[in-house]
């Protein structure tokens, strides 16, 4: 069976490498982007089955912008947004609402453990 691949975007190099480690250990391929701009390029050029995007990169709402662009191109690819400050940001985030203007499937606070991560990924990829 072909390995599924996951696009990871984060401007925190340590966090990106840790995510890469865990996601690869779960048996996925990874495509990495170090910032919003790089991620926009990867969305245009790469093939992937899922994306995990940091919320605050160059912009306070980089993750929202990226997931909007991604969903426009690939409506069926699941997107997880991660942030260190889900609680502090004022964005009212309700992914359950189909008409919510934020097009992501899940929002997670950073600091997530590998087993939780695995559960979320499997759920969204329906594995």
């Amino acid at each position, binding site marked *: 069976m072909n390995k599924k691949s996951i696009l990871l975007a984060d401007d925190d190099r340590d966090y990106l490498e*840790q995510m890469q480690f865990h996601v690869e250990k779960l048996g996925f391929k990874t495509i990495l982007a170090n910032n919003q701009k790089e991620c926009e390029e990867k969305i245009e050029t790469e093939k992937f089955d899922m994306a995990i995007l940091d919320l605050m990169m160059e912009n306070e709402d980089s993750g929202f912008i990226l997931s909007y662009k991604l969903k426009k191109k690939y409506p069926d690819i699941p997107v997880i947004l991660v942030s260190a400050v889900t609680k502090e940001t004022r964005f009212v985030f309700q992914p359950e609402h189909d008409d919510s203007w934020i097009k992501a499937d899940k929002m997670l606070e950073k*600091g997530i453990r590998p087993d939780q991560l695995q559960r979320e990924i499997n759920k969204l990829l329906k594995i």
Partner: protein
Amino acid sequence: MEKLKILVVDDERGILTGIRRVLRNFTVSFPFHDEDFEYELIDSETGEDAIEIIDSQDIDIVLLDNKLPGIEGVEVLEYIKKKEYDLAVIMITSHASIDLAVKATNRGAYNFVPKPFNQAELKSAIQNVTKHLFLKRMTKELTSEGKEIRFKFLSVLSHELKSPINAVEGYLRMMEDKQLGNDINAYTKMINRSITRIESMRNLIMDMLDFTRVESGKKSRTIQEIDIVEIAKIAVDSILPIAIQKNVSIRTHFPDELIKKCDAGELEIIFNNLLSNAVKYNKEEGQVDFVLKKDRKNVIIEVKDTGIGMSEEEKSNLFKEFMRAKNVKTRAISGTGLGLSILKKIVELNNGNVTVETEVDKGSTFKIEIPF
């Protein structure tokens, strides 16, 4: 009961009556506030009308459609922002457009309600905005002596503080779970990265302390006649080790002495910041020219480097808190993005001004003028 005034700006009659119906007997209560909130509705069909109403009455909440017959909703938003009115705006958008959403958020919109909306959506939006307004006003009261705590600043600050903690915690967990096996040597990189993150967090905390000291008051200033050249020399000495490491040479162009009444600590912060940036963002074997001089009115400080320079966009954000240019060239350079905002505050405290000239890959010159 506390009454909040909601201004509904929409040219569709149906929407207006709908909102009226939903909010007629609607109240919001909070455990930490004795009084319930209820709402009084005022409507207008154009942005022009809305502005007149906002100018003449105390409005608390605006429900604003973007598509209006005359000026657009975002223009009303802009006006409210410019006038710094203490009210919260909820945009009503018919199609979830991120462009509009981002634009409106930047201009201060608090939230969005997609159109058509149902009762529950409208109620929850009103409930949220009421809480937001209430807390904002309460904070404003608490901090009315000019120490306004800005939401944005706090959310960015907590982001900057939590990111290194997350990174270090992530590494520790990987070690705890022995992800790379039993040999401690396998973890060297993780340990080193953790130490680096902790060091930069320490710098951030130090900068934060400087920042709040400058923000919160002029109390601890000691203004006396000092020789600026002396302080500049010490600043050069303390940056020298880093400059040598990077093969950057520092040339000073100082008069014999330059006496001015000011706070020595503040000058130190200015010099340290400019020099450390001029070295950090320089090239291998680059140059720094450090000039002190005066004209009839001002002391002039100039720090010129031959480093990576900045784009127009980076330059325009330069003095914002936590702004760091993010590109390939700056990725490996650590910093908090607070230095220059502190510097700017100090310069302003001394009635001076800062200007920057910069060109990508050529270098930057920071010039500060402080009146005698």
